[in-house]
């Protein structure tokens, strides 16, 4: 799947973010380094509370006011060869200029994303006009084009309906049409298939693939649905406890997972389970992120964990040019292999 280039369009650089909470600060992101490359679909998977949605929302500054970036950087590269834009330094107006035009987002709940008493066509048109299309007829034409592109049956009729008169899948596609109205370079997709039926989910994933190949859209897809990630993603990043723990090609992650968390996550999928046998499971709950230890939070649930896993943060060991995992299991004293550190390789898994 080597179609996507290694040129980043979005870069998270040791990003740290915490939420003020009455019981102390919650460290939602604890140093995430990651790049979304131009023209790729990068899926971030993990359990709820692992920080994947927070990471996505941080890009457009959509987290609630209690959220504060406490360290690291977040950069957007408008063009391949120009200097990056520091997203953390933009003021509210500059951020508004960016939202929807350069970077657009679609969320799980399309019912909340759409205005309930305005027809979806009008909502798409108003977004088109906000993005610079001054001519009303042209905007209407473009709106119908968008609906046709997203393969909604009978676009003219759909455009006149209210969100409540559409099915979940159709509504989600209208929300996507609004996101695409500004012809963004980057699409942030947060659990967009989670609320959909199996058939509508398949349809939505198909559209994502088409958008990637036809519009060269770069997509950051946040999902807990590993099978959906496997189907569309070029690369998959696995998050746990506010950190990225493993990243690689879809094949590498699903067929050769190396971080213990990735391994149990895949084994517990019903699609991977054996019929009639209990699902493979791991005890314990998702971690609380108040005062987390330095090391890997999954060590608290991993029977094979060593002390070092908990007390010291593991670096990313590069398993191949595209695959890296942050676990001490891969240190040469423990596995006998000499894996290089991923952050020393330019153009490596983390770039």
């Amino acid at each position, binding site marked *: 799947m080597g179609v996507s280039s290694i040129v980043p369009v979005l870069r998270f650089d040791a990003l740290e973010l915490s939420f003020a909470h009455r019981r102390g600060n919650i460290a939602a992101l604890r140093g995430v380094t990651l790049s979304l490359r131009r023209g790729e679909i990068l899926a971030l998977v993990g359990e709820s509370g692992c920080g994947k949605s927070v990471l996505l929302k941080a890009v457009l500054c959509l987290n609630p006011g209690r959220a504060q970036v406490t360290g690291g950087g977040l950069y957007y590269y408008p063009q391949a060869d120009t200097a990056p834009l520091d997203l953390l330094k933009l003021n509210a107006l500059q951020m508004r200029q960016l939202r929807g035009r350069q970077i657009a987002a679609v969320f799980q709940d399309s019912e909340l994303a759409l205005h309930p008493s305005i027809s979806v066509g009008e909502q798409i048109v108003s977004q088109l006009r906000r993005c610079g299309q001054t001519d009303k007829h042209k905007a209407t034409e473009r709106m119908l084009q968008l609906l046709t592109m997203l393969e909604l049956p009978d676009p003219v009729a759909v455009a006149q309906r209210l969100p409540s008169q559409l099915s979940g899948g159709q509504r989600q596609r209208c929300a996507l049409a609004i996101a695409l109205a500004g012809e963004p370079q980057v699409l942030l997709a947060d659990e967009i298939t989670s609320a959909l039926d*199996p058939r509508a989910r398949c349809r939505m994933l198909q559209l994502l693939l088409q958008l990637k190949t036809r519009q060269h859209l770069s997509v950051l897809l946040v999902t807990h649905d590993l*099978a959906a990630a496997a189907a*569309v993603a070029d690369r998959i990043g696995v998050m746990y406890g506010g950190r990225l723990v493993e990243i690689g090609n879809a094949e590498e992650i699903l067929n050769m997972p190396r971080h213990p968390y990735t391994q149990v996550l895949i084994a517990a999928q*019903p699609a991977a389970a054996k019929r009639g*046998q209990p*699902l493979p499971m*791991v005890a314990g709950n998702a971690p609380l992120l108040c005062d987390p230890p330095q090391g890997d939070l999954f060590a608290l649930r991993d029977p094979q964990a060593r002390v070092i896993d908990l007390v010291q943060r593991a670096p990313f060991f590069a398993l191949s040019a595209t695959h890296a995992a942050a676990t001490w299991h891969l240190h040469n004293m423990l596995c006998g292999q000499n894996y290089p550190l991923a952050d020393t390789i330019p153009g490596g898994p983390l770039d």
Partner: protein
Amino acid sequence: MIVGESGSGKTTLCRTLAGLLKPSCGQIYLKGKLLHPGGGHERQDISFIFQGQSALDPQLTLFEVIAEPLRAQRLSSNEIQERVSVVCALACLDEWRLNEVAGELSGGQLQRVALARALIIQPYLLIADEFTSALDVLLQAQLINTLLEQKELGLTLLLVSHDLQLAHCIADRKAVMYAGRIVEIASTDELLTRPLHTYTQQLCAVQLPLEPLAARRVVEQYTPSQVILPANGALQEIDSGHWVFC
């Protein structure tokens, strides 16, 4: 296990079984006895878990929530205490949390409480509607395994889900619902190897395997199509135990 997409009537069926909705016609039988719509005492040995967390009173402590179904049985407080401990262990619920208020819990914890509450009356039948749909896979595995253990001990389960793959690995028999009807019902193996109804076939065809190339192929080759049920059709037994609506 009942599978089907949203709007197919799965939840309505559950609510009718629970006596929350009155059927316009037709009857429900439990162990050969007719259940009257709305008759609570006949449903004493059925437990229900509904989707969403709103079913639990957010102001009660977990202990009160879990022990509430026992009120009708007039047990001593020692017995109640004992039963609560047993079901907490079953549902992987930490006992020190029992004094917390239900409103403060996360989704996963609340589903554990709902499970503990459902098991406390030692039911004959447990009906769970989209029990694990909102949960992560690791939590889902914990709770589903608890249910499977109970099943080994003799509990009958009626589960509702939109997750066909989950159904494949835990159900003995599956009923597929579409547009308010059961369109196919058969043993899990039979449905897996020989789905006969068009809708079941479509549903099976869009299941994504965990293998990236195979999953990508499923997505790329998907063509949407409408399933229309015959207006005056009925369930017919095609093979022993394999019923299809046609």
